């Protein structure tokens, strides 16, 4: 083997890394391009939040002519025809990818760290309004020597600065040299107590758990909540979460129970608002916390409750950064009074009452389909620029 070819071969080493970075780049691009669909992807929402998430990416497949039906595989061991060995789609570990050894091909799954995903989504959503007047809460105090003054202890003489001042003074008189040091030239370092300011966020999730809230409707609420918390965690050091489930009464519950809950009975939203309000005043006062309150419901509130809700909502708005209300109304939901039909469903009475409050920090949206999740997020977080 001629030596120079070996040298060349060695020079080209490192293309594995380059190409693997290029592949990661393509994965990111594929994700970004398809963010809208991926945002509701169950694999993400149901992940346990560990560092790397597997996202099925149908967009990075390498196309070629291939068989539609799965091939027969070869195995070894005990068993009779008809015995079940396992199930498809359970990530059976492959050998060295021999053709015909696997039960079937899987869609390529990209593994992406959760922070990267959040960052991509955040960029897309660009939450400017979170910057508005953030509340500060003092966490720590540090001493910083960054101020320079004319008076101070001689041990803290800022020599360079002193000479500079002397130079400036002499130059003003037409002679740019360091000469004749004067008291006026002296400069001293002094310290300031710098307060490291941290901001805290609290998220209140209010959800209607009356019988009509199906699992798929709760899934929308869950998806929304998943992303909301991640966004806030990217912006704030501490994020507190409070889950309030209600039908005619409201209770604070644990996250793990929240999405599984289902009660019967009617719906009285004010119970939730009242509980939230009391809790905020006690645990997340406005002086120290940025609180975001989100309420998801699907049905009509008890008619006589609407005014109470409206008033409570106004009070809530005094205590928090924003209040969001999401009404999950599928097109083919039958209303209590009969078949609503294909057209856009009527707004519930609660919505119309809330809409009477003219506060820009109150955002009301209607959700008709799981695919609208991205738009819902935008509406809640980018009211000015969201696509209606």
């Amino acid at each position, binding site marked *: *083997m001629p030596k120079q070819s070996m040298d060349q071969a060695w020079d080209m080493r490192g293309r594995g890394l380059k190409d693997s970075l290029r592949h990661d780049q393509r994965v990111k691009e594929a994700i970004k391009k398809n963010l809208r669909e991926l945002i509701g992807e169950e694999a993400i929402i149901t992940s346990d939040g560990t560092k790397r998430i597997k996202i099925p990416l149908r967009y990075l497949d390498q196309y070629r002519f291939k068989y*539609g039906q*799965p091939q027969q595989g070869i195995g070894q061991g005990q068993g009779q025809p008809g015995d079940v060995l396992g199930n498809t789609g359970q990530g059976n570990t492959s050998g060295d990818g021999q053709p015909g050894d696997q039960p079937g091909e899987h869609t390529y799954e990209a593994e992406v760290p959760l922070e990267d995903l959040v960052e991509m989504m955040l960029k897309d959503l660009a939450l400017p309004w979170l910057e508005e007047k953030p509340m500060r809460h003092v966490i720590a105090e540090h001493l910083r020597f960054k101020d320079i003054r004319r008076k101070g202890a001689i041990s803290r003489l800022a020599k360079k600065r002193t000479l500079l001042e002397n130079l400036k003074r002499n130059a003003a008189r037409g002679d740019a040299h360091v000469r004749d040091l004067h008291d006026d030239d002296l400069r001293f370092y002094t310290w300031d107590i710098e307060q490291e300011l941290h901001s805290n966020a609290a998220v209140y999730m209010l959800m209607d758990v009356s019988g009509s809230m199906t699992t798929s409707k709760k899934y929308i609420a869950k998806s929304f909540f998943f992303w909301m918390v991640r966004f806030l965690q990217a912006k704030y050091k501490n994020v507190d979460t409070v889950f309030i489930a209600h039908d005619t009464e409201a209770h604070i519950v644990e996250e793990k129970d929240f999405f599984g809950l289902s009660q019967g009975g009617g719906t009285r939203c004010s119970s939730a608002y009242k509980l939230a309000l009391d809790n905020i005043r006690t645990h997340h006062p406005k002086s120290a916390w940025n609180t975001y309150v989100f309420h998801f419901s699907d049905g009509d509130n008890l008619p006589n409750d609407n005014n109470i809700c409206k008033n409570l909502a106004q009070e809530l708005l005094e205590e928090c950064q924003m209040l969001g209300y999401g009404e999950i109304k599928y097109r083919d939901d039958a209303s209590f009074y009969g078949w609503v039909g294909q057209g856009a469903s009527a707004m519930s009475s609660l919505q119309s009452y809330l809409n009477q409050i003219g506060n820009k920090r109150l955002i009301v949206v209607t959700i008709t389909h799981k695919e609208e999740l991205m738009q819902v997020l935008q509406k809640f977080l980018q009211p000015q620029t969201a696509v209606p």
Partner: protein
Amino acid sequence: MATTAEERFRDRMAEIEALAAAQGLDFFPINFETVPEDMMTEVASYGLPTRARHWSYGKVYGHQRLYGKMGLSKIYEIIINNDPSMAFLLDTNPEIANLLVTAHVYGHSDFFKNNLLFEPTDRNMINNATSHAIRIDGYIERYGLETVEHLMDIGFALDRHIDPHLGTQRAPYPERRIVEKEYTPRAYEDLFDKPKPSVQYVVEGEKIPPHPEYDLLWFLITYGKLEPWQKDVLSIQREESYYFFPQFMTKIMNEGWASYWHAELFHLWEHVSPEEQIEFARLHAGVVNPGARFSLNPYYLGFKIFHDIEKRWDEKRKLWLERDKKGEKQDGPMPITGREKIFEVRKTDDDISFINNYLTFDLVRDLELFSFAPKQQGKSKPVPDNTPIVITSRELEAVKQALVTPRYNYGVPRIAIRDMLQSGLYLEHIDRDTTFLDRAYATNTLNYIAELWKNPVSILTKDEQGNDCSLTAKPSS
């Protein structure tokens, strides 16, 4: 001190080489390189020490680095089909492991040199792939990474559709021309009607392609309207695909052969300490372990079959010699020995004939082989997740078929170009009676071809009901 250990190691390798030659192995000279893991991973991901860049290799490389395991043999071995061969040893392997790899690799080199399927392969591919890579790097610089990448995506989509009978070097089809053909009248023909002229003018080379064309890239390169650099990139991909084809066709045999020989050479080698023998036995067991329930280890299968062939032919021969001694009548001439037989097999067979001819009922039973598949509804619908996977058969024929089918036609559906017309390019899915094309993939691949062909492209296949149908793609602009 390190040099002495290194020298000692090289000496031992030389002993193995001498042993291999003494046993009749006939191999290209091998250059061994001891390398760190990332280099090993790189060569394994790309298939060659240097190769043109593409993100798909990056996918494999990245995955390997994260998950570490390289193939089924946990002892890493890579040898390149080349003259001289190039082999890689992992620098973190203990010495005995690398000696096993050395013996194993001599088996491979003999296989590469002697198996007939490898005869037309480019034995200078290491250097050629390097120049390929340099050329493609040049195009990337000139035309941009994404442009070249996209073209290579198309090349990879099509590069398995080759025609090994016609090979890499081909001339274009005969030109369209008018040829004089002499017409010989039959007896008494002049008694009827007007006599035909004795010289006729016939058009030849009219139809393109004159026969179904299986080498899709060759056709696109030769008859498509592509820039020279595009033709070059596709030619490179095509050549490299042809180069790897024999390796695809002989994986089981090749690994079985090399495993047979690393075991045999170690068995014969005198300069191995008892501790090393034990360690070797352990490593060897790891290499030829049966594999998991879902995936058969080719090293194991090939190894077992070769031993079985040797055993059976030795028995046949023994019987013949016994009968000969007793003066009894024979069925035929004296059979060759088992050893001779396996040398013959390694020369003339590929995995398909190897399995078909030499996988026996007894082997299937002893190795407990079975075929399995998801319990599917329609034969064409993609199988949803959580479909049970069941054992379908333990019969010899079914097992053979399950082993052999994925190795037909480079593992891809049999597709040929039928016609090149004004209206577009017409392809045919030749084995549409027995196989079904994945629709989404087929459509996207047709789009790729249409993009290059700059005209509509259709393929004749069958729908889910079994009726002929056409899929078409038009170029996007």
